[in-house]
């Protein structure tokens, strides 16, 4: 019991600082690494501006074109479902909002626990479906690298340990909560160095895409 409590305090204290530091410095470095490369001046006569089409694509690319949806409905739906579940649980569950309220003193409305519980289960199921698809689909299998499975495991672990802690399925409780917090920290640490960077860089990728096509008069 004592060891578990120490473990929890460690995850809440020093480890939390370390994870946050690595994440913040790492992610800033990655963004600089990308943006400082810049782009060559474009001398071709533009048909339209870049800013608005770029911003447009940042949003519109979230929804696939009808043809792609028809060809890959499973990919699109599963991706959507578990991403939404993940983000809602992260932002709108009682323990998380209370945590933020405790640290920063700001809070916002939460979803009832049974709803969060259901969303958590759906997110876990969605992630399992995504993993199976990665293992079974010939294209996904061909292009996957070990990192993809690591990133999956980290993401899955955060949600799973949260669920285990909430339902007191691991004894002692401090160990359960400590595991949850530690897995969230591992996710943060790996974020700048894996494809998890897409959480931040997707905005830039979409903007560049929308800007390049928009300049030529094409909505992308």
């Amino acid at each position, binding site marked *: 019991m004592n060891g578990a409590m120490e473990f929890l305090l460690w995850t809440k204290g020093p480890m939390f600082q370390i994870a946050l530091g690595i994440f913040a410095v790492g992610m800033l470095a990655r963004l600089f690494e990308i943006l400082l490369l810049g782009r060559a001046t474009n001398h*071709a006569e533009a*048909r339209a501006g870049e800013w608005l089409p770029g911003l447009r694509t940042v949003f519109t690319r*979230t929804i696939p074109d009808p043809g792609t949806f028809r060809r890959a409905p499973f990919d699109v739906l599963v991706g959507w479902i578990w991403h939404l579940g993940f983000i809602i649980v992260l932002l709108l569950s009682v323990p998380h909002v209370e945590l933020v309220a405790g640290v920063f003193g700001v809070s916002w409305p939460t979803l009832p626990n049974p709803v969060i519980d259901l969303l958590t289960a759906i997110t876990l199921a969605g992630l399992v479906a995504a993993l199976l698809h990665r293992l079974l689909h010939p294209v996904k299998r061909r292009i996957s690298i070990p990192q993809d499975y690591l990133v999956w495991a980290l993401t899955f672990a955060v949600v799973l340990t949260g669920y285990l802690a909430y339902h007191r399925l691991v004894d002692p409780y401090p160990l359960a909560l400590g595991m949850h917090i530690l897995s969230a920290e591992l996710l943060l640490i790996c974020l700048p160095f894996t494809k998890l960077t897409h959480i931040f860089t997707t905005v830039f990728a979409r903007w560049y895409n929308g800007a390049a096509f928009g300049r030529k008069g094409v909505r992308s």
Partner: protein
Amino acid sequence: MSELSLERGLAALRAEIDAPVAAFFSSCVRCGLCAQSCPFYLETGDPRYTPILKLEPLRRVWEAEFTLWGRIKRWLGLGQEVSDAMLAEWEPLVYDSCSLCGRCSMVCPVGNDLVYMIRKTREGMVQSGHAPEGLVAASVRAIRTGSPMGLQWKTLAVQIQHVERSTGLTVPVDRAGAEYLVMLSSMEIINFPEYLEAITRIFDHAGVRWTLSTQCFEATNAGIQIGSKDIAAELVERVVVAASALGVSRVISPECGHAFTAIRWEGPNLIGRPYPFRVFHIIEVLDELRRDGRLHTEGKEADRLSMHDPCNLARKSGVIGEQRALMDLVAEHFVDLDEHGRFQWCCGAGGGVSSNERAEPLKLAAFKRKKAQIEAVEPERMVTMCATCRTQLEEGLEEFNMDIPVVGLTEMIAEHLVERPAAEPEPGTESGQPA
């Protein structure tokens, strides 16, 4: 080009990496959706043809040299190197199975502009000596003779004579002070001489001051297809010199998709400065004439027509509404293919695939996408506006025993022009179509 080597290839790849490329590779979640947009994957079912995989050489250079983590991995000896053998293995992926159609760039959920990066990867392939023979030969011919097919002005001069005889009009050559300089493609001159005849008629009808140039008549760009900036810039520079010599304010690209994107979008960047003239595709010019009330047509085609959008014109250059407005002018029963405009499917022959004999089976496989689209609409004829697309559609449809003729939109417009009252003394005489 002097000695090609792995080092030069890597240097070329390195030089191509910019902020968009870094943002794209950083964002890829390896979801594989881009495969669902690529005719080469969809029609073969071979996962090697997944667009993001075609970029692996460029991605490795980016990771090893442009990311902190990659540098650490390399230092630890864990990095993935790009070797000569790897580039050799990738050559058919980067060239044979990609028509640079750009569809993947519209579909990737994180917004990766994949075709932008495939175009860049080819720079490294060329410099490392891993470009397909067919494209190398076309580039050498283009640089030496001015035409990727080795065609010379005297062949065009014969076509001009035919056109002048059958139209009774003069084809203006080297006319300084004309508004438009018309550029052609060798493919057009050889396979579709009716195009030159059509624009001769249309421009006479609309009173457009135009000219051809003996100094440079070819505007296709083998350098763009193979992926060599030096060659591409040289070919663009020739057009700029010819246009400047004649003092034209506008240049019309050939009815050829890649030629248009080459001269319209890449050209000024290749030569490092803006042009002293503007560039248009013939379809844009015709639509402008239509809007200005300078095209008077009569009668309409009565059969069921559908249209193939060339990738380079529609998705990669935003010319989508223009050809439809022109169709409405001359066609009664026009039906679009299901996925058209910016989401159209490639004919399978672009991006140098048609100049690369080795890619022949893949070219035919990719065409099956187009074929299925055409079958769903059941047109009596197909209309298009790119010589390469048109050749591919004709050959493909024939291969599958589908009796659907393919016609050029410009020629169709020319056939519906209202006869000008007593323009020239001598209307079209016996000689007919030049062969």
